[in-house]
């Protein structure tokens, strides 16, 4: 049968599992008020931030780890994790960033040297290693347009009014267990503010790298698109190959005001662990956007290939009239990976519109779950939703599950849901092979075809990266 070669074809090796050889300053494991005071001090934060963090810790301590998702894992020992790790000698000019870090980023395909970026599309990068942002490029050029692009730690110090106004406004401090944990211990992440009427002149991006051992990464990102503005933001991530699980619990909040638009793309490639389930990142992430004003638009596009466990539901609150929310997702689970991912579309404003396109690919022992909620409030006259959830199974040991939830209080609301589960059939594979295409190339061709609708939403250079990554994840041909 065709399956013989398939497992081999889909157990791609993880290409980014190297470790950056740098000295790291790490907080001792454990979570307490002292830990938080330590983090806050490291970040030179104002008193009000420390108070908010401590409040979050108190709330978190009253909560319990959720296990409702279709994910099988043993509870995390939060006292064994170190909550702060930073490359030593953190300095702020490019010349002084540890060359080993620059080199590592080059290896990841990201240049932190503005001069070195070739002609073409400029991409501003915030580079985060473990708990700190080591470098943010093009900040000055962006400043000329009034765009603020900096690490969240800087924003807390330099733009306290914006941070106070918007942080916790979309994802409340104690929204859920992992969000509460993040609110207490978050270290670095990106802050973006696009002023009224400005179209951000370049792609913005953040690249998260976990490097230190026995640490978690808890980043927090806050993006505000003021009236009539537009921004395209991309995040990427990776981590070294290690036998222990590492926790990544992030929070992302997006605020989109009247007539503004945020396009948020993620290529998630955390270390997935091995085929027995040893090692890999536990990825528990809360991402939410609010279309605050009329005609606001938000679009989440995610390509999830990494992590041992993914628990993530980028959501849209469509509050402004005529606002639009979109969710495009490709989630791949191979080896022993498990993903429970999807979205929530909350329709509040009139004539709000949402689109959900979810593509799950499971191979080997991978388990892939789509979980999504479409909620149409009574106020959301004329709301419309279109959902399409497709699963592709490669081989016979993997699984795909779909849990669509619908709550509609507006009887006029239009909700369409389509779901399919297909297997890469022997007939499809054979057809391509009969035309002289190798089995590996045939699998990759079918998978790319399946993901097309989502990849077409990514900015060009990221689409190329996503395709290459998918190939690597599913094809075992190390590049």
């Amino acid at each position: 049968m065709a399956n013989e070669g398939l497992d081999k074809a889909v157990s791609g090796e993880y290409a980014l599992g190297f470790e950056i050889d740098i000295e790291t300053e790490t907080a001792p494991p454990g979570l307490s008020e002292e830990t938080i005071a330590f983090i806050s001090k490291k970040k030179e934060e104002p008193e009000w931030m420390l108070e908010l963090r401590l409040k979050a810790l108190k709330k978190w301590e009253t909560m319990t780890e959720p296990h409702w998702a279709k994910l099988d894992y043993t509870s995390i020992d939060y006292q064994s994790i170190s909550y702060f790790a930073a490359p030593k000698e953190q300095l702020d000019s490019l010349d002084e960033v540890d060359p080993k870090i620059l080199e590592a980023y080059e290896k990841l395909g990201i240049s932190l040297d503005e001069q070195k970026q070739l002609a073409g599309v400029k991409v501003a990068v915030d580079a985060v290693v473990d708990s700190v942002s080591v470098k943010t490029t093009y900040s000055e050029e962006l400043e000329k347009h009034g765009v603020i692009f900096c690490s969240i730690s800087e924003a807390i110090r330099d733009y306290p009014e914006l941070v106070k106004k918007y942080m916790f406004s979309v994802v409340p401090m104690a929204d859920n267990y992992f969000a509460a944990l993040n609110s207490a211990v978050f270290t670095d992440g990106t802050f973006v503010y696009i002023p009224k009427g400005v179209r951000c002149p370049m792609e913005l991006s953040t690249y998260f790298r976990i490097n230190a051992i026995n640490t978690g990464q808890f980043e927090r990102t806050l993006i505000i698109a003021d009236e009539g503005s537009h921004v395209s933001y991309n995040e990427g991530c990776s981590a070294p190959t290690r036998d222990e699980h590492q926790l990544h619990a992030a929070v992302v909040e997006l605020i989109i005001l009247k007539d503004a638009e945020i396009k948020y793309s993620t290529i998630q490639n955390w270390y997935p662990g091995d085929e027995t389930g040893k090692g890999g990142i536990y990825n528990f992430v809360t991402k939410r956007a609010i279309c605050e004003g009329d005609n606001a638009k938000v679009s989440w596009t995610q390509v999830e290939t990494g992590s041992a466990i993914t628990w993530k539901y980028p959501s849209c609150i469509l509050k402004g009239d005529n606002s639009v929310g979109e969710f495009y997702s490709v989630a791949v689970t191979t080896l022993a990976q498990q993903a429970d991912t999807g979205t929530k579309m909350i329709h509040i404003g009139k004539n709000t519109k949402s689109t959900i396109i979810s593509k799950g690919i499971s191979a080997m022992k991978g388990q892939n779950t789509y979980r999504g909620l479409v909620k149409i409030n009574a106020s959301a006259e004329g709301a419309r939703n279109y959902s399409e959830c497709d699963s592709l199974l490669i081989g016979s040991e993997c699984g795909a599950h779909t849990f669509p939830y619908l709550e509609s209080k507006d009887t006029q609301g239009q909700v369409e849901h389509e779901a399919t589960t297909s297997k890469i059939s022997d007939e499809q594979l054979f057809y391509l092979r009969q035309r002289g295409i190798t089995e590996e190339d045939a699998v990759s061709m079918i998978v790319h075809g399946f993901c097309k609708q989502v990849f077409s939403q990514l900015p060009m250079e990221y689409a190329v990266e996503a395709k290459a990554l998918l190939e690597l994840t599913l094809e075992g041909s190390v590049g």
Partner: protein
Amino acid sequence: MSTVMKIENIEAKIGEKKILKGLNLELEAGKVHAIMGPNGAGKSTLSKTIVGHYDVEVTGGDITYKGKSIIDMDPEERALEGIFLSFQHPVEIPGVNNAYFLRTALNAKRKHEGKEELNAAEFLRLMKGHLEMLGMKSDMISRSLNEGFSGGEKKRNEILQMLILEPEVIILDEIDSGLDIDALRQVSEGINKMKDGKRTFLVITHYSRILDYIEPDYIHVLKDGEVIKTAGPELVPYLEEHGYDGIKED
């Protein structure tokens, strides 16, 4: 006579069912061989066996192509060596652009033959004439592979692939099923264009209709997993009149 493919005593089963029972067949290079026979005779299994389909388990015998046994070759190797099957029911592959697929297949073949790969522009130029001849709209190649194609469009697309890949042994499995008269004419034109005295055809068909368009040199009657008769084209009218039951074994 020069033999391009020799099928010797082939025995094959699908699942637990024995379908080919010591079948013998020799294909003469450059000729058109028609395989005819009633439903369940093993016609499609024969074509699947030649191209190495997963469904088929070969339990005995051998197939040699240009003097080499192909029985242990991967399907893609057989394809690259020049064996082509026009599928009876071409499968749909969503999201895979038809032109991209065709170019990938062609370049795999060219690479195998040590030739340079064609770029997109060169490839499109090559396609243009073929599309016109087959009466295919140019948007057919920018659509997803076979997705939402009508029966006739799928068969035209098979012939398009044949024209582009220029195989040496061409198996046409029920190529005429589901074709209206115009489509049949265009598909036949495509096939006849490939008849250059070097390429060999194996036309598998239930009805004789297609043989009015593609003139066969030999008729092989397949029954219960064996070739029971081989004759010239004069057998066709006889079959039409008397059916397969009237055939006496050679």
